């Protein structure tokens, strides 16, 4: 699980914020959220390798359409694979079935191998589509889209606050880390490190809570009543309909391919 996010990791949307995301970027955010879910559900329902390959191919062609930095996106996808590779490598050895070969007395089965490939393909196809369709949005737009899709208002508030303050708190974290570094702190496997990190987390939380009290006062001052005021209006155009029908058709096609 270790090297998942470097301290300076950025979301894909931030990494190239001025580049418009081609065909995908122009679509209505609501359509993108809904279609990502539809595609995910359809893909998870697939069970045959050819259908799953087709699903991954669909995801990759969406990536091409989006003009996201391809290498960086695939690298991020590969990072997720590094989490699951362990489980996938184990699967052939733990699933009963026709033996393929044996290693140190443990026999690997074909069934297990296919299962592992299936999981790998599904996971990658879904996460890639999610990153392409939803991950290219401004985080705030995602909040607005979820609100329009009738998500509970409080949940959307929470999402917006989280998005708003991640960057602020990350800066505070880096400032505290800088202060520690300047005093000669080097992390290692020892009590001192764990105590210092514990205090760091505690300090971050105390400061966060005090900050939130100030935020609440400031918001009340401006008449916050728990209502979301949305500045963005979404409009469905013909293009959105076309995209939804097209991707919906692809999903049906995938399911048919799987069924046959």
């Amino acid at each position, binding site marked *: 699980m270790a090297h998942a996010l470097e301290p300076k990791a950025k979301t894909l949307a931030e990494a190239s914020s001025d580049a418009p995301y081609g065909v995908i970027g122009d679509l209505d955010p609501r359509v993108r959220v809904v279609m990502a879910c539809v595609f995910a559900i359809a893909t998870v329902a697939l069970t045959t390798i050819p259908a799953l390959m087709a699903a991954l191919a669909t995801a990759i062609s969406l990536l091409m359409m989006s003009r996201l930095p391809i290498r960086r996106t695939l690298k991020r996808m590969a990072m997720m694979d590094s989490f699951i590779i362990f489980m996938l490598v184990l699967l052939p050895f733990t699933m009963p079935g026709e033996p393929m070969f044996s290693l140190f007395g443990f026999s690997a089965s074909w069934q297990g191998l296919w299962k592992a490939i299936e999981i790998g393909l599904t996971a990658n196809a879904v996460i890639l589509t999610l990153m392409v369709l939803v991950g290219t949005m401004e985080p705030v737009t995602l909040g607005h889209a979820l609100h329009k899709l009738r998500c509970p208002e409080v949940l959307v508030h929470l999402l917006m606050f989280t998005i708003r303050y991640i960057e602020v708190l990350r800066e505070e974290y880096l400032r505290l880390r800088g202060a520690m570094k300047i005093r000669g702190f080097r992390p290692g496997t020892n009590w001192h490190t764990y105590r210092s990190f514990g205090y760091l987390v505690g300090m*971050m939380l105390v400061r966060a809570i005090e900050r939130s009290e100030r935020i609440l006062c400031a918001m009340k001052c401006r008449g916050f009543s728990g209502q979301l005021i949305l500045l963005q209006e979404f409009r469905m155009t013909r293009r959105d309909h076309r995209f939804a029908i097209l991707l919906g058709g692809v999903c049906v096609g995938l399911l048919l391919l799987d069924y046959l």
Partner: protein
Amino acid sequence: MHIVDGALSNPVVIGGAIAAAGGIAVGLKSLDIDRIPTAGVLSASFFVASLIHVPIGPSSVHLILNGLAGLLLGWAAFPALFVGLLLQAVFFGFGGLTVLGVNTFNIAMPAVLAWMIFGRLIGRGSAVHGAIWGGLGGAFAIAATTLFVAVSLALTGDEFLPAAKLVFFAHIPVMVVEAVLTGFAVLLARKVKPELFLKGSSA
């Protein structure tokens, strides 16, 4: 700790989604207007804290801190951690979409349990006393999370059992680190802002 799409059987995925939706609903009910900013800022700080890499021997682990999140937020830890997982999946590509429910439940339910068991104890006695209970809460939450992950894998099929066991044992060092860190975080918070946990235990 993230489970990915396609690994779990449909009943487990659907069950997880329903359980998570229930937890989120309870959590949202406990959030009135005055607590929304607090929960939002805390949710963001747990997101940032999960980027901290703590060295263990030659490797390092990143923090989860769901125990601490539960101790501070109570049921509101459900929506707060859900938001964190959603953002991670969408913008960083961790976890998955259909398994979001299962992942939320596996991380947030232990947080709520830690709050139920240890929440009251933390505000009492001396700061060190509170810190020890906090540390136990932190370890408990990670242990419960790995257990829940293992159970969701085991419910899917026997072929995952070895992987599930491995997940559990591989996380024992993580439990220790989380316990120590949570303990010290509580110790600092008790000293710097003692009213924090007094309020939390009555909420």
